[in-house]
């Protein structure tokens, strides 16, 4: 049972490693951490070309080393492919509070006034995972985390 305790500890450490592009989310909230095993943390990239992937691996390495888990390896798996369905409910709430509309299959809502009267300004935003939207009711421009 020592190992179950250890993997739980590692997961707690990872819950405090922020995503470099959207620091309000942890790598666990974002679904980048797929599995914590006795000897390794398995992560998956969001988009194949996401430039944050290397930075994420580096911050996870540093957090593991700093918490006494230097023996844990980091493995990358691309299958099954990352999907926004893996963003936790807590992650979705944090996104909304941060001003980014969380991914939704039922249409986007403004993170400021919750109106559904929104329009796409640009399908590609400041990072591969976001699109640029505008709220027709309160006028707020905002990022939408794209369903993927």
């Amino acid at each position, binding site marked *: 049972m020592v190992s179950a305790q250890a993997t739980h500890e590692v997961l707690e450490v990872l819950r405090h490693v922020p995503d470099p592009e959207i620091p309000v989310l942890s790598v666990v909230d974002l679904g980048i951490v797929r599995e914590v095993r006795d000897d390794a943390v398995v992560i998956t*990239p969001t*988009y*194949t*070309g*996401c*430039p944050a992937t290397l930075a994420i691996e580096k911050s996870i390495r540093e957090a593991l080393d700093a918490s006494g888990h230097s023996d844990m390896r980091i493995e990358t798996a*691309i*299958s*099954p*492919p*990352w999907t926004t369905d893996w963003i936790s409910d807590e992650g979705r709430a944090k996104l909304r509070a941060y001003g980014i509309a969380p991914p939704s299959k039922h249409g986007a809502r403004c993170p400021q006034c919750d109106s559904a009267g929104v329009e796409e*300004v*640009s*399908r*590609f*935003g*400041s*990072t*591969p995972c976001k699109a*640029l939207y505008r709220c027709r009711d309160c006028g707020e421009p905002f990022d939408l985390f794209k369903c*993927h």
Partner: protein
Amino acid sequence: MQPINERALKLGDDSLILGQRLSEWCGHAPMLEVDLALANIALDLIGQATLFLGRAGDPDALAFRRDVLDFRNCLLVEQPNGDFAQTVARLFLFSNWQELMLRDLCSSDEFGDIARKSVKEVAYHARYASEWVVRLGDGTDESRGRMIAGLDWMWRFTPELFEGDAAPLRGEWDARIDAVLGDAGLDRPKDSRPILGGRKGHHSEHLGHLLTEMQFLQRAYPGATW
């Protein structure tokens, strides 16, 4: 020595060369949103290239230390950007093909993992390009004329996409292309003598110029890292 994985090279080189072409727009696009979009699409493609080329060897060595004759990309992706409409035409014709090709590849033992990840990204590229074809084709006389010229430039390189194993994709690709051209009020470009050879390493002059820029740093400072 093991023979190099030709299939991985074709898949990787298509994505790499189009990714490099699109990144040439960075900082030069007609508006900020387009700049962001093309840079993001280029990133996706270069990410895919890294994965595919990784199945053929060291992706950096393959990207930066091969000469023109060793590249296996199709001729379409190496064509010059031209104006924005010509860039849109190339992305439209290629991404619609790439999406169908990757969709079939999802069940492959060898490349299925990469295909299942990439196909989601490419579906987005195809939709983006298709929307621009409609916007430009159905826009002003100026935008319409440019869209027609862009499609005319790129069209002769499309038969190469359907060589060999990819032949069965032709019907569905035709239907997709025709539907978008219909929405844009554009005629299908006239077929001319197909230009082939990229898959065998017989490239147009344009690829050499692209490589001189892409490979400059590793040629001048071999092994340099960030």
